[in-house]
């Protein structure tokens, strides 16, 4: 370890000397280092992390663009990435400097006012890499560095000013099926990532790295091993390949120093091949940010057999329910239920859960524990074909919901009227290959009769009452991450008509829309420079949005094709005459 430190120090000196000699360094733009204080309380005009704030609201306090003037919104500039597949990452903005990522792990730094490219990092990926999910969901900023989690399972630190690689750490072995697609989380000198690969017989985990050196600080498995709490929920050696991937950035409560992460389903998919509740699959897990210790958890549904990953991080908010004020966590589950939990330093408690889309698996929920009971005929099993609703992509997949404190509404990008069937078969493990207990190519997704009316929805739920306020339906399915602003607005795309829309945040009325190059599965953001507000989003269809469209085309005999290719769109109001 000492030799490593010496090497780092030597290298830092060399870098410093070269920085003096190289014009590229000398001309690097001024950069406002990202501190813990700034991450906890970001300036209104910035979007410094995945959901802008640690509580995962997806809310911008900017209000120059309002429900009254949004109809005048126009494109300020666009930028083609030159990359196909799903462009899901939010443009991260720090005082006029913007960072986007693309599939195949490119990072592009742009002048957020002019759209000029400042630098581009393109990772050299292995030539034998198979990508089940060719995408990336963004970067973390910390200090004057930028952090990227890659599909060949590395964590890379770049100089945010220049794009130069500072260090890279191999987190796991991609040849064994491990990969990463999420935006890392930065907390107090650590960069935290979660691991994908749940369809490949991995054992999922969350790991923190020292932001300066790249050394591992802690690593917490999401499948407890022998002697660890929760290990008893696994049978024999099932835990060794138990899945439970983690592929969406967590939330964080600085008051308790707990970071809250959603987890994926257990593997293989067929629950009868891994008896038990399978902790910490399909759960929210609270970890001490300093040590990685699991302080508490809540499993939304046990022994998943439906591919209902519950990876979206809970939105942290204070709510009053039944006359009682509580520190809440809200999660629109892939299992089709809207979960309200209560959190404190030591515990997570069930408060309430209601279905927000048609769900025919749960027969009840224990009012104390929140544990659901199942209709046994709706549990996919080995050697049979089983139908269930909602589909394998659930009521809501990864696209994040948003919460607006001004309206008190939670906005959910939902999919209704879709079901699935899975034909289970014995899973045979082969390192680095699919390990599902069902043939991926034979999984079925089909619309119900009601889907002729609509599939996609934008739902609004009143957090004070727990009741649904309104629904905006779409003929298309919906893969649109949600942004909401203090201008009483919601921004979201996600439909196969390539539209990006603005909605009235109070009523859901569509106020503005723009046809884009592709389908919008990117996370929208808002930022400002010199007092002028912008809205930015990537349009670039792919991965599961395209797969679901293929299913619907097959079922309906349609041929809807959404063109691929990523473009960043930045919108503004016209300058006053």
């Amino acid at each position, binding site marked *: 370890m000492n030799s490593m430190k010496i090497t780092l120090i030597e290298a830092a000196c060399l870098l410093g000397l070269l920085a003096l000699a190289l014009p590229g360094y000398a001309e690097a733009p001024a950069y406002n280092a990202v501190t813990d204080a700034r991450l906890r309380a970001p300036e209104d005009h910035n979007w410094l992390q995945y959901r802008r704030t640690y509580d995962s609201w997806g809310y911008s306090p900017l209000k120059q663009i309002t429900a009254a003037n949004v109809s005048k919104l126009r494109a300020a500039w666009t930028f083609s990435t030159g990359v196909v597949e799903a462009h899901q990452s939010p443009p991260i903005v720090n005082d006029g400097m913007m960072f986007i990522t693309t599939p195949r792990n490119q990072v592009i730094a742009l002048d957020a006012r002019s759209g000029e490219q400042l630098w581009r990092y393109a990772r050299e990926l292995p030539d034998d890499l198979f990508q089940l999910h060719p995408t990336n969901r963004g970067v973390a900023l910390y200090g004057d560095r930028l952090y990227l989690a890659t599909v060949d399972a590395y964590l890379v630190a770049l100089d945010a000013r220049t794009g130069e690689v500072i260090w890279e750490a191999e987190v796991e072995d991609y040849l*064994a099926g491990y990969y990463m697609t999420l935006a890392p989380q930065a907390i107090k000198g650590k960069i935290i990532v979660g691991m994908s690969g749940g369809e490949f017989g991995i054992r999922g985990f969350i790991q923190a790295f020292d932001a300066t050196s790249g050394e591992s600080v802690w690593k917490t498995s999401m499948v407890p091993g022998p002697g660890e709490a929760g290990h008893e929920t696994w049978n024999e050696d099932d835990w060794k390949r138990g899945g439970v991937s983690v592929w969406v950035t967590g939330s964080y409560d600085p008051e308790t120093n707990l970071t809250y992460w959603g987890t994926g389903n257990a593997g293989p998919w067929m629950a009868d091949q891994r008896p038990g509740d399978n902790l910490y699959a399909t759960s929210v897990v609270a970890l001490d940010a300093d040590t990685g210790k699991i302080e508490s958890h809540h499993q939304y549904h046990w022994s998943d057999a439906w591919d209902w990953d519950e990876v979206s991080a809970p939105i942290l908010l204070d709510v009053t329910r039944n006359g009682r004020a509580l520190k809440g966590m809200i999660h629109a589950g892939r299992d089709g239920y809207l979960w309200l939990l209560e959190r404190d330093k030591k515990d997570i408690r069930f408060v309430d859960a209601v279905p927000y889309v048609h769900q025919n698996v749960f027969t009840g929920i224990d009012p104390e524990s929140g544990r659901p009971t199942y209709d046994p005929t709706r549990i996919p099993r080995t050697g049979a074909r089983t139908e269930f609703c909602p589909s394998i992509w659930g009521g809501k997949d990864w696209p994040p919901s948003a919460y607006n404190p001004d309206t008190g509404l939670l906005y959910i990008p939902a999919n209704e009227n879709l079901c699935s069937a899975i034909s289970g078969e014995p899973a045979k493990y082969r390192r680095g290959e699919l390990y599902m207990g069902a*043939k991926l190519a034979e999984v079925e997704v089909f619309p119900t009769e009601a889907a002729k009316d609509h599939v996609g929805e934008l739902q609004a739920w009143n957090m004070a009452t727990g009741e649904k306020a309104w629904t905006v339906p779409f003929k298309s399915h919906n893969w649109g991450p949600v942004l909401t602003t203090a201008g009483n607005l919601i921004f979201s795309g996600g439909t196969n008509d390539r539209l990006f829309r603005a909605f009235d945040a109070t009523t859901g009325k569509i106020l503005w829309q723009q046809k884009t190059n592709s389908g919008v599965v990117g996370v929208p953001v808002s930022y400002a420079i010199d007092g002028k507000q912008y809205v930015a989003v990537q349009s670039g269809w792919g991965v599961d949005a395209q797969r679901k469209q293929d299913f619907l085309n097959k079922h309906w005999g349609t041929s809807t094709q959404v063109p691929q290719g990523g473009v960043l769109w930045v919108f503004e109001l016209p300058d006053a005459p």
Partner: protein
Amino acid sequence: MSKEPEQPEPSRGRRALLRGAVLLASGLATGPLAAKKTDARKLPAQAGDELCFPSWEHDGRMLLAGEIEIGATPLLVYPRDPATGVVRERSRLNQILVMRFAPEDLTESMRPLSADGVLAYSGLCTHTACGVSEWKSDEKHLLCPCHGSEFDPLQKGKRITGPAPRSLPGLPIASRGEHLVIAGPFTSKVGANA
């Protein structure tokens, strides 16, 4: 973290490498900062390589031609450099599926590729490089579970159905005693086109 047994390699925990392109370009890099040495386990399959199991299956032993049964599920093997004993198992491009047919099932054009009814193909689909890990025993077809492409090993890996744009690359093999060796290059590019 439970890990499969592997051949020795650099510690993962210490692989936080400074890789400043500036340093490398300037020629100042030494030791850990220098370009990584080529990993022989990643090199492509060569004519003359032997076929053996990877280190994480069957203890990495040599494949015996006699253990490949007619019509049975194909076995996954990798090339082994006979001079050094290095198994080229750190590249998925080297995944090889071997299977046996009754000699009378092979057409005249297939025989030069085979050794006593044994055929070998790339284990990676030509669509997105997903592993061709399924075997349809009734049809004797190789199946990629990701997107459903099917290939017929008795027709030089011809695509039967699915989105794969081209045939599965074949690999000529020959007998050497009780073992099998690679007799020539893959018949086409291994993996996806992109």
